[in-house]
């Protein structure tokens, strides 16, 4: 795999038809630099900065994990993990990664509510995470692992995703990228890398509630069936072991005989055909205009104020 675009994949990007499934967030920040204080230290940040820039510039009282924050290539802020909450004198508890820095604001990292929110939210992220670090290709270079260690998480309040029946099958279908959605924190970096940076329009956010997941705009079920060109950008930005480069998926696992990253889930979509190039069959088909749109169907529990439905417990 290479992080270069492959020259032989001569498919024009179609920005108009890209549907990442995410909301159009407003632009954030002011036009001018601002000076504020973080835990009593005065700091000046540049125009369009958010509070996280100020926090990163000083020695803070408490650690601020800011798990989903990514400050390169115009990716983010997605501001979804809420492990960056801080207290401000003017606006109460706010997410540092996406809250605009303004003159005179006083930011406190150690305030009770903010510290509690960071702590609980980190545990909530872990509650939905397959924490099998020993067989993970990102062991030792995982941002979630780092955050958990730095925050001295001993026993997450809500446990970890440990129910094999609830695991999504591993997508091992592509020759270049392996997807383990059980390790995805839905930070959306890969979606933005694929759509906004590479303009490939392969990945999207889909679903709702617990079914929210990274999927494919082409409605494909597997990476091999998607329109991926294997540029690898999504893998580069992924903070966890959810997207790993094939070939090194077991590079950092603890060598236990018979136990690998791939079989750690139990079920996997296997690679079905050896592809000749970085283009998936779907992408090749699309290049020759054979791509068909399929309809999305959905069923939801609807309506404003009538029965919640369900049959508790």
């Amino acid at each position: 795999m290479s992080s270069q675009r492959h020259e032989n994949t001569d498919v024009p990007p179609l920005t108009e038809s890209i549907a990442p499934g995410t909301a159009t967030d407003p632009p954030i920040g002011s036009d001018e630099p601002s000076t504020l204080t973080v835990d009593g230290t005065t700091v000046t940040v540049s125009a369009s900065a958010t509070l996280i820039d100020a926090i990163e510039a000083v020695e803070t009282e408490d650690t601020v994990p800011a798990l989903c924050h990514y400050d390169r290539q115009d990716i983010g802020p997605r501001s979804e993990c809420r492990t960056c909450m801080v207290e401000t004198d003017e606006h109460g508890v706010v997410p540092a990664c996406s809250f605009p820095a303004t003159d005179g604001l006083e930011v406190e990292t150690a305030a009770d509510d903010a510290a509690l929110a960071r702590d609980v939210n980190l545990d909530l992220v872990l509650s939905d995470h397959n924490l099998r670090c020993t067989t993970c290709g990102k062991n030792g270079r995982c941002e979630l692992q780092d955050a958990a260690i730095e925050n001295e998480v001993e026993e997450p309040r809500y446990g970890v995703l440990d129910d094999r029946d609830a695991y999504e099958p591993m997508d091992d279908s592509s020759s270049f990228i392996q997807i383990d959605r059980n390790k995805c924190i839905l930070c959306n970096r890969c979606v933005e890398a694929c759509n906004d940076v590479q303009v490939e329009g392969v990945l999207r956010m889909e679903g709702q509630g617990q079914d929210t997941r990274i999927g494919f705009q082409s409605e494909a079920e597997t990476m091999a069936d998607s329109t991926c060109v294997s540029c690898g950008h999504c893998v580069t930005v992924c903070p966890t072991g959810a997207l790993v480069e094939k070939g090194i998926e077991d590079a950092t696992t603890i060598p236990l005989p018979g136990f690998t990253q791939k079989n750690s889930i139990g079920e996997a979509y296997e690679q079905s055909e050896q592809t000749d190039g970085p283009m998936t069959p779907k992408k090749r088909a699309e290049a020759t205009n054979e791509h068909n749109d399929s309809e999305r169907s959905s069923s939801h529990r609807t309506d404003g104020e009538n029965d919640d439905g369900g049959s508790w417990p």
Partner: protein
Amino acid sequence: MIFPTSDEDVLVRISDRNPSRELLDGVAGADCTVVEVGSTGFPAVEPLVSVTRGERTTFHAQCSPEEIQEFVALADDSSRADTAAVVEHDPETTTFPAPELFGLDTGVRRVLGGCGWRRPTHPDDHEAAGGFASVASEAVASLARQLRGRGWGDWRHDQRLIDAWRPAMEADSAAVVVNAHGTTADTLLLSSVPFEVLEGANAAARAVGADRIVVYTADNDAALTVNEAAENYPNPCASVDVVGGPSEYRAAEPTMALEAIEGNHRIEARLRPPGPEVSGLHGDPTLVHTARTFAQLAVAVRDGFAESRLVTVTGDVAVPATVEVPESDTIETALDAVDIDGEFKAACVGGRFGGITTELDIDVAPDTLANADLGTEGTVRIITEDQCVVAFIGNKTQFAADENCGRCVPCREGTTQLANQLRAIYDGDYDSDGIEELVRVMDLSSICAFGKQAGRPTRTAMAAFESEFAAHADGRCPAGSCFDRNFAVS
């Protein structure tokens, strides 16, 4: 407005959401004028046929096609008190002259005044009621300084409108969104008095210099009605589009409404700040208020500022009803409009994620409700003695876990863990501190009001029904509905 012209002239109004063809045919050929008016907010009495002759109107509830001809003929005969009520009124009244029957006289009728009386899409009816008068923008802005947004679909929910109007006033291009998604009251306004809503939106658009109005609803019939009214609107100051949205509950959230209007196939909340007042529809400063808010604005422009609240009572009642209650009156007032199916136990006050209370002697003013940890969404859901409160909030929590947009951790994962914590009670593990901690963090750190409010039913139910929670931890359901379903009825 259409009025009877002489004492012999008979005017028949058929009030219903969707009057049947048969009912209209039933009166065909009679010597009278028949008009269709929208719902009164009381589906229990509809189709409601009112027969006006001079200063007297006779009302017939739940009128069938067979009965209507007879009712019209008997308009003078007030002896038929079983189905009819008679009201003497100013012959030119533009406000529904509510009879003292069926709970129809509950509360006041300012915003709801035209419901069941004026023809929804006829501008002359609205004009006769004082509508379409030209008002100075300063007067509108000054009302926006007092008026608060109604409902969670309003970007200024419970807050004064004006602060969210300033960026639009300074911008070259701005939009107004009428968010009528989700609540019965908003749908009622669009269907029965669309001109009140459109007039409020026009007044706001003129005051801030907005060039377009978008009416957003998930209700097809209401969309058709408001669309027709918009086409008949004399001299609108901005273009009006009616856009249908998906019916999911969350699609009423102001930024999700914008996403739906812009055509996104997947509906999730936008980040804030800044909110839609700075960057809204297609990036322009946008006013997002509910139909209730705009109708209040229109009526305040015309009749002066006097706050009232639309309250829909639903749940364990024979038929739900929507009434208008002055802010100085209590929730109890609204209950006069319904028949409770059983013995009152509690109410969920303030919409889907409202607060649970046994106490209804509380003003419907937003500050009073907030102090009692109740919601101002406008819907009061009645729970009767045979219902289990733990199961009630369990279902709400599971709904929240299934229906959130999936964007942020405190809501997406928090609602799921909260449902787990509530299920754990059934296994004897009632961790009230843990539940309170989680609900607090959901409220503190969720992106939008969905996640902030999703824990309120649990928080308030734990306070009001502590013993029921403890009983469940002991394997007992006081309402007899949770354990051993098969034996509960024996």
